[in-house]
């Protein structure tokens, strides 16, 4: 636990023309979850149960289910599994995703919140070189704002 690490969060809201019950299945059923995220998934969908998803080759996200209130509210922790000796700004268990489903006519409003993400500054100090790309992926993929990549601004002479 690093109490000095500054954190940030990300929020999104979308409407889906499907019932909360249908949407819920896409959040907790690994076969359906991989239709919208990752290549392989294992879920033990109960409080304290573990989940993991191979998001891309060599990058596995994992965490634990915290709260399941079908089909209204789902809370789970999120992070990236360590890969080699690289700095990992978002290790498993370090951030939390909260998804709320509210009926909206025949459809559903989905509110997505990703909390406790390290901010760009806290992350930047751990990284250098091209290794920072996967670490940036970790921050951005988990919804954080890694800021504009300074390398993209400089001409490659």
């Amino acid at each position: 636990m690093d109490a000095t690490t500054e954190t940030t969060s990300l929020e999104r809201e979308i409407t889906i023309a499907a019932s909360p019950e249908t949407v819920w299945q896409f959040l907790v059923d690994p076969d359906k979850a991989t239709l919208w995220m990752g290549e392989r998934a294992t879920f033990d969908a109960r409080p304290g149960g573990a989940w993991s998803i191979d998001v891309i080759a060599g990058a596995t996200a994992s965490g634990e289910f915290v709260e399941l209130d079908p089909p209204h509210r789902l809370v789970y922790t999120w992070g990236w599994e360590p890969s080699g000796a690289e700095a990992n700004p978002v290790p498993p268990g370090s951030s939390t995703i909260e998804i709320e489903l509210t009926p909206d006519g025949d459809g559903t409003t989905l509110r997505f919140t990703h909390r406790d993400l390290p901010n760009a500054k806290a992350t930047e100090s751990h990284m250098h070189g091209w290794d920072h790309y996967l670490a940036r992926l970790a921050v951005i993929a988990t919804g954080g704002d890694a800021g504009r990549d300074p390398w993209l601004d400089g001409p490659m002479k």
Partner: protein
Amino acid sequence: MEAALKAIAEPRRRQILELVRDGELAAGEIAAHFDVTRPAVSQHLNVLKEAGLVTERRNGTRRLYRARPEGLAELKAFLEGFWDDRLDALKREAEKEERAKHGRND
């Protein structure tokens, strides 16, 4: 874009990108930085080339490589849209299933 993500998921390929970020290097010069065989390095260079992250130029018998900035810019734009893309995909799949459940009578 998946090719670019897979390309950067390998630590040695990120090291190669770092080497050719600021200037062009020959395959042999790149290989000299690593403990692995030259064919292994060539294979990494091929993956990077096919993902659009490096360019290759022939000069006589030498092959010269350098990072391709546009490839990196595309990669970054993709990464930034990660959750937006995922949530869009969730919406699409859930709606597809809902339509299937209710038949095609609308």
